[in-house]
């Protein structure tokens, strides 16, 4: 029972992170020098390190997908975004080394992969924008890793 409540609390925290990221992603509030971070990507990749099973993660990914819907009709960007974060959920489990560093590497790779699949011309048309966004995403990912690590411990705290 206590374990269930603990898991529910972790999931609620994850949902709050995803909702905040989704709202920011739809505004220009975090835009710096014309560059908007992909905070939703950074948060979802970071959350992959703290969630053990696919189903709760899929809930978070779909929730983000709903928040990122921009236009009516089919949206390739949304589909690619979903595919990239799901791919990285599985990839995260196969990476050796420190989770913190792996998180930053996956966020950088995710930013590149996302634009490569969505609009590869954008990569060479505006390389500075892509690099700037990648750096911005990495910084947000590092902060998110620290915060989520504090708020969503993996195991139940032991009280005597």
């Amino acid at each position: 029972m206590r374990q269930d409540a603990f898991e529910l609390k972790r999931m609620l925290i994850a949902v709050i992170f995803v909702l905040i990221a989704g709202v920011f992603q739809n505004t220009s509030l975090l835009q710096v020098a014309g560059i908007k971070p992909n905070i939703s990507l950074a948060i979802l990749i970071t959350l992959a390190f703290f969630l053990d099973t696919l189903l709760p993660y899929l809930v978070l990914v779909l929730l983000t997908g709903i928040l990122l819907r921009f236009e009516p009709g089919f949206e390739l960007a949304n589909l690619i975004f979903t595919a990239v974060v799901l791919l990285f959920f599985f990839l995260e489990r196969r990476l050796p080394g420190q989770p913190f560093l792996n998180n930053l590497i996956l966020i950088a790779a995710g930013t590149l992969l996302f634009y490569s699949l969505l609009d590869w011309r954008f990569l060479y048309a505006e390389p500075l924008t892509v690099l700037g966004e990648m750096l911005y995403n990495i910084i947000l990912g590092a902060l998110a890793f620290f915060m989520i690590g504090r708020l969503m411990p993996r195991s139940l705290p032991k009280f005597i």
Partner: protein
Amino acid sequence: MILIGLLAILGLLFLSQILINPKNYLVSQVGNLVSRPMALLSSLIEISRDSAEFEKLLRENEVLKAKILLLSKSSYRETIGGHEYLSAKIYSTYPFNNRGLITLNAGRLDGLKELLPVTVGETIFLGQLTQVSDTSSVARTIFDAGWELPVKAGTGGVDALLLGGREPRLTLIVKEKELVSGADVYTAGKDFPYGLKIGTIKEIFDNPGSTFREATLDIPYAVGELTQVSVLIK
């Protein structure tokens, strides 16, 4: 079991589009809520600006307050210089950097239709409506990578092509034509009213292998800080 049910519902919502308008409204409200303390913080940081500038801003502020008062007591439509405009709030901005799209809180029911020009402060060209639904619309802006539109620059009306992107720039400027930094750049395409200002020339570059020059632009507003735009109805 509950989780699978939740997933099915979320999956359906993900594929459908019924939540786009409520989501845009929510984002707009939360965005406004968050932007106020952020604006306060940034104004505190910039408090050291010189007093002349401060006095000028105060006067502008009073004019804007009067305008807000007027607008709040009347329709959002206004006629300036023989043109009719509709003021609309920016609901949300395209989530990623590769497109420069914005969603507005006005649509077909407010008299909007595709291809209408969108401006900042009625006279500065920002973009064009590309999708219009009953209550909202999507506008493509000059910050959209890949958008090209014919423009003119300077008092001599030098022809150029504006290339959209995070930093819009001019290309295809003939070398023989005289153009200086600070010259106004304005619309000259058949799809928009002639002479809407876009910005001013910042720096001109000579391309040794080409008969054309390129130029960067100074845009007179920060696109990230825009919350309201005008749509030129007629």
